[in-house]
Every structure is written in structure tokens, then in C-alpha cells.
């Protein structure tokens, strides 16, 4: 028995266990401080579905050996282009949603290809550079949103301004297009977005299948041991680019799923900080800078979004103060910090002639 507990502890890992227990405690406390547990649970599930694919988008790059994708906003931009174009074409419902995805994918592939080529040139410094690629692409697109020739009156400023609005409502188009497939509504408070969760599961399956194909195995090999992979005839640079493209496309799809549930497209500086919750999520799930699995994604997203949803409602009701933002900052960055400082990897000494 003790052995079993020990094994479980080792497999789950302390950070997950502590956060998991904390989350459980929050759920138990909730009814006592007049927080409706069904609404909370439903919120956690919806946010889990919204963030799931964005967190999943971390996996290919980590597996390909390019580290955590702080450049997630780049993929998000591809998704935004798809979403905005779909609204411009006045497409509604599932047709609107899937055309947004289809339009976003080529942008994702294109941007991912360039991003991958860049990351191949800067091996060893991927994460820092990814951070700034993400930031600068958001700022660059802010200029573009002002200038791109979109005409739909649903998206441009009614008067007194030029360019697209900062937030665009998708209510008339594909609001909850995915969520509302086979949705389950129990009472007034509990709502289960079946369609979105199925879609997330499907994307997980696709990624899982990919990593079991020949190319997928080569990507993992290139990531875990580049020298060995090269010796066995794997084109490491090509595999890294494939992993980056996959990451970027997943991010593009992920943001569209996020938006159809959220109800708004956020342009301009909206995608600026979106990499951080995704990075924190996968790290909480037990991933490291070098290895990430789909299980990490599912566990991490659920725990992290759970904490983010529950802490404000419960803690605020207890101490009557809104500390949610501060708690979010400390928890998410604390997790990233923990992951960055955990494994001491000594990079092989620089080659000097």
C-alpha cells in the first residue's frame, strides 16, 4: 500500500498534488461562502475547453527541441486573420467557424515556416527570441489591423476612426458554434460544452497520431537528442521546422475555438500576453522545457484554469477583496519560474578552435 502511494506521488509530482489539493479545497469551501458550485464547475469546464488547444500548441515545439513556445501570439495572429476574414464574408454557424479555421491554416503554415527557419538559426536561444518574435509580431499586426482593407460594418469603427475595432463581437456569426453541438444543460447553472470538448479531444488525438507516425517519431528524436538523430539520418533542421509549423497552426485553430466560446475577437494588443497562461498550464501539467505529453496538457489545463476560475470567486468571498489578478500573476509566473530553474542542464562546452 505504502509503495503504491509512493509510486503515485512520484508519478503525479508534488506541484500537481499541492495545486490539485488546493483546487479540491476550493471546491469544498465554495458552497460555504455562497459560491454556486455548479456554475463554478461549468466555468472551469468551459475555460478548459477554451484554453485546451492553445496549451496543446506547446507540445510539438517542446518535443521538437525548440523549448516553450513564448511566440504563441504569432500563431494566434494567423487565427485572428482567419476569424476576421470569415466575419468579413458574413459566414455564420459551423460553416463560419470551420471556414475561419481553413483560412487560418495557410497563414499558420506560412508564418510557422518563417518562424521555424529563424529558430533554426538561433539554436540554444529559442525561448528568449520567441518571446520577442511574439511581441513584435503583435505590434506589427496592430499597424496592419488599422490598414488592412476589411469593410464589414460589423468590424470597423462606426465613425471617427479608421481600421478594425479592438474587440469584434461574433454573436451574429459563430458565437458558441462548437459549444452548442449536443450541449448538455442541467438546471439553470450547469452547462457542458460538449462540442468544444469533443473538438479538443479530436485535436489531441490528431497530435497523438502524428507523434506515432514516422515523421512524428523523427521530430521527437530530433528534439531529445539532435546528435544521435543526425547520426541516424534524420534531418534535424527540417524536423524542427515541422514541429514549429504544427505548433503555429494549432495556436491558430486554438484561438478560433477560444473566440467562438468567448464571443469576441480581440485584436491589437489582445494576444500580447496569451502565451503565458498557456506556458504555465502545460508546465503545471508536468511538462518540462524538454518534454511534453498530451496528458500534461489535459491535467495542466484543467488544474490551471480551475485555479484561475475558483480562486477569485472563493477567496474574494472570504476576504472581501479582489486579489484575483495578483494571485494569477504570482501563481502563473511562479510555475514558469519553477520549470525554468528546476532542471540543471549544463550545455556542452562551446566549440572553440
Amino acid at each position, binding site marked *: 500500500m505504502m509503495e503504491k502511494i509512493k509510486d503515485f506521488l512520484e508519478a503525479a509530482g508534488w506541484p500537481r498534488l499541492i495545486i490539485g489539493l488546493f483546487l479540491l479545497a476550493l471546491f469544498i469551501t465554495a458552497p460555504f461562502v455562497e459560491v454556486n458550485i455548479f456554475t463554478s464547475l461549468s466555468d472551469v469546464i468551459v475555460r478548459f475547453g477554451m484554453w485546451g488547444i492553445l496549451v496543446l500548441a506547446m507540445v510539438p515545439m517542446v518535443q521538437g527541441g525548440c523549448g516553450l513556445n*513564448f511566440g504563441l501570439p504569432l500563431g494566434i495572429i494567423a487565427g485572428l486573420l482567419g476569424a476576421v476574414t470569415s466575419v468579413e464574408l458574413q459566414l455564420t454557424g459551423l460553416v463560419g467557424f470551420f471556414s475561419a479555421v481553413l483560412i487560418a491554416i495557410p497563414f499558420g503554415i506560412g508564418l510557422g515556416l518563417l518562424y521555424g527557419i*529563424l529558430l533554426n*538559426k*538561433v*539554436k*540554444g*536561444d529559442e*525561448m*528568449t*527570441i520567441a*518571446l*520577442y*518574435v511574439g*511581441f*513584435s509580431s503583435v*505590434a*506589427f499586426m*496592430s*499597424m496592419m489591423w*488599422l*490598414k488592412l482593407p476589411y469593410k464589414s460594418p460589423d468590424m470597423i469603427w462606426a465613425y471617427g476612426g*479608421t481600421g478594425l475595432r479592438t474587440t469584434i463581437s461574433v454573436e451574429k456569426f459563430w458565437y458558441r458554434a462548437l459549444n452548442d453541438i449536443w450541449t448538455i444543460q442541467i438546471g439553470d447553472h450547469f452547462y457542458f460544452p460538449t462540442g468544444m470538448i469533443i473538438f479538443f479531444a479530436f485535436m489531441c488525438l490528431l497530435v497523438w497520431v502524428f507523434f506515432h507516425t514516422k515523421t512524428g517519431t523523427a521530430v521527437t528524436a530530433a528534439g531529445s537528442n539532435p546528435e544521435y538523430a543526425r547520426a541516424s539520418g534524420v534531418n534535424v533542421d527540417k524536423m524542427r521546422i515541422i514541429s514549429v509549423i504544427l505548433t503555429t497552426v494549432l495556436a491558430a485553430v486554438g484561438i478560433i475555438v477560444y473566440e467562438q466560446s468567448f464571443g469576441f475577437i480581440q485584436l491589437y494588443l489582445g494576444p500580447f500576453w496569451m502565451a*503565458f497562461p498557456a506556458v504555465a498550464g502545460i508546465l503545471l501539467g508536468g511538462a518540462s*522545457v524538454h518534454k511534453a505529453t498530451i496528458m500534461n496538457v489535459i491535467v495542466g489545463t484543467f488544474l490551471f484554469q480551475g485555479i484561475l476560475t475558483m480562486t477569485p470567486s472563493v477567496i474574494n468571498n472570504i476576504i472581501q*477583496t479582489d*486579489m484575483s*489578478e*495578483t*494571485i494569477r*500573476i*504570482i501563481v502563473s*509566473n*511562479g510555475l*514558469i*519560474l519553477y520549470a*525554468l*530553474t*528546476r532542471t*540543471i*542542464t*549544463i*550545455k556542452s*562546452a*562551446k*566549440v*572553440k*578552435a
Partner: protein
Amino acid sequence: MSILKSKDNKIARFFINNAVPILFILFAVFAIPMADLSIEYLVAEMITRLARYSFLVLALLIPVIAGMGMNFGIVLGAMAGQVGLIFVMDWGVMGVPAFFLAIIISMPLAVFLGWMAGIALNHAKGREMVTSYILGFFINGVYQLLVLYSMGSIIPINNSKIVLPRGYGIRNAIDLVNLRKSVDRLIPLEINGIEIPVMTFILVAILCVFIVWFRKTKLGQDMRAVGQNMEVARNAGIPVERTRILAIVISTVLACIGQIIFLQNIGTMNTYNSHEQIGMFSIAALLVGGASVAKASIKNAFVGIILFHIMFVVAPRAGKTLMGEAQIGEYFRVFVSYAIIAIALALHAWRKNKEAEFARRSLRVDTEEAAGTSE
């Protein structure tokens, strides 16, 4: 190696090595006429900004010597400085004494934060920059916990002007009436109507002398050795970990003083925002001045501040003339600040990889030649 020595390559190398400053000079030449600003205005603006930012940018130099790259953790020092300023404002101290008192109060905090950051970075060798960046966010959360929730409730603050109406937490903006420009104007000097903050520049000059002197000390030499190769340094008996921690502590303390200088010049403190952008702006400025992650000089700092801030002042106006919209210029400014860091870091990493590859190839040629002669 012969390829590297040829003359064409030397010129090409000069351009590659100074690509970022050259780009910025071209930008300035192109954009200044378009912005339609008077030269007097630009000069006055540059003098103010040199006084405001020099100390902060110079605070970045020492970790670079120790091979730890750009220390995004200077925001930790900035936060410490702001805590000091809050107390000084609470006690109602005036003028230059307030300035020095703020430094004295925040110094221990800065040393502590720097020491902690140093330990964290020792656990993240090879990815110091990302780690120090996230560290800034993390401590920002702790800072909010302290300033927004504890001050006025757990930590007594009596000055109602700086406390939020709800009774605890510090206001978003604090008017630093007590010490606005107190250091800048200690030795008054005006040339052609442009105010020169003499005392601030004297402080900056003292820091420059300190850095030059510091490089020659035993500790400075140790840092350089650690920066070049940690293993070799360790074998030579240098306490690598301790040296790296000291580099970050010094940088954090300097940033703390730098932030106090910066805020006395501006005159208002945005309690929850003033420190946030400091790391990014200082690092962008240093990189624009031609520094790299592995090499940065005092000259880089000053050239960088001038070039970066010319862009900063000129871009919105130039954007308006060029595109008919000031908003584009705003975004352009944000874009350039981030893109320049991305480009400078990418160029450096690329060059480093290229050199490593070149070194490998030259070895390979040697063995082939050796094989050829032996046959």
C-alpha cells in the same frame, strides 16, 4: 581562417557587427525631417532622456561581463527603489535628503532581491534571460501583494494622500512633490534655454568611473573569466556561483538607484506601472547602441539611449506625416522596441552558431589536409 582576414570581409563584418545602430541612424536620417520637430526641442529632449535613463542602462553592463546576458531583473531593483520612495513620501522628507534616504531604505531590499535572483539564475544557466524576465513578472506579483494589499493594513502608512480611499493600498499615481527634480536642479545651469541636470550627470559620471575601475579589480577580472568559460574559471579556483550572484546584486542595486533618479526626473510615480517597462526600454536602448548579449560598453549605452529615444520621440510624428495617423506611429514605436531586441538577439545567436560551425569546419579541413599529406 584566411577568409575572415580578407579586406572585403572586414567591411562586411563591420556592417554585420553594427547592423542595429546603422539601421537606427538610417531611420533617424529619414524620419527626423518628416517629423518636423525643431532641433532645439530634440536636443533638450535628448538631454532629459540621457539624464533619466543613463543610470538604468549602465546597470545592465556588469551581468554582461559575467556572461549572464541582458539582466531583465533590473525591474527588481526598480521595484525596490519604488518601495523606498513610498516610505519617503509617507514620512514627508523633502528635497535631496529624501533622495538619499530613499536610496538608503531601498538598498537592503535591492541587495536581498538581487541575491535571490542570482541564486535563481544559477539554477538556470544557459537561459538566464528568459528566467530573469519571468522573475520580473513574479516579483511584480509579490510587489502588488506588498504595496496594493499590505501597505496601510499590515505596514502602517500615515500619509492619506498616498493611500487609496478604501484605507489600505497605495494609490496608482503618486505625485513626488517632495523630490521632483531635486537632484537635477541641485546645481542649476541653463544653456540657450535648455536646462542641464548637472548633478544627475555627475552621478552618471561617477558610475562610469566606478564601472571602469570595477573591471580592473579582482572581482571584475573574475567576472570576465566566468563570463568567458565557467568551467575554466572554476578550475582556476574562482567561486563561479558566488561571482555570478554578486554580478546580479550589483546590477540590481544600481537599477534601484537608477529608478529613483528616473522618477525624481519625471516627478510622478505610477506605482504599478513605472517599473514594468524599465527592463525592456533599457535593454532595447543598450542593444540599439551596438551592444550584444556578450559584449556591452559604456559607449554602447550612451549611443543607444540617444538613438533609441530619437526613434521614440520622432516615430509618432513621422507616422502621422507618413500615414496620416498618429496611432500608427504609436504602434510603430512599440513594434520597433520589441523587434529591435528580437533582431539583435537573433543576430547574436546566429553569429555565435556560425562561428561554432566555422570552427568545426576549419578543424575538419585540417584533418582532411593532414590525411592528404600523409598519403
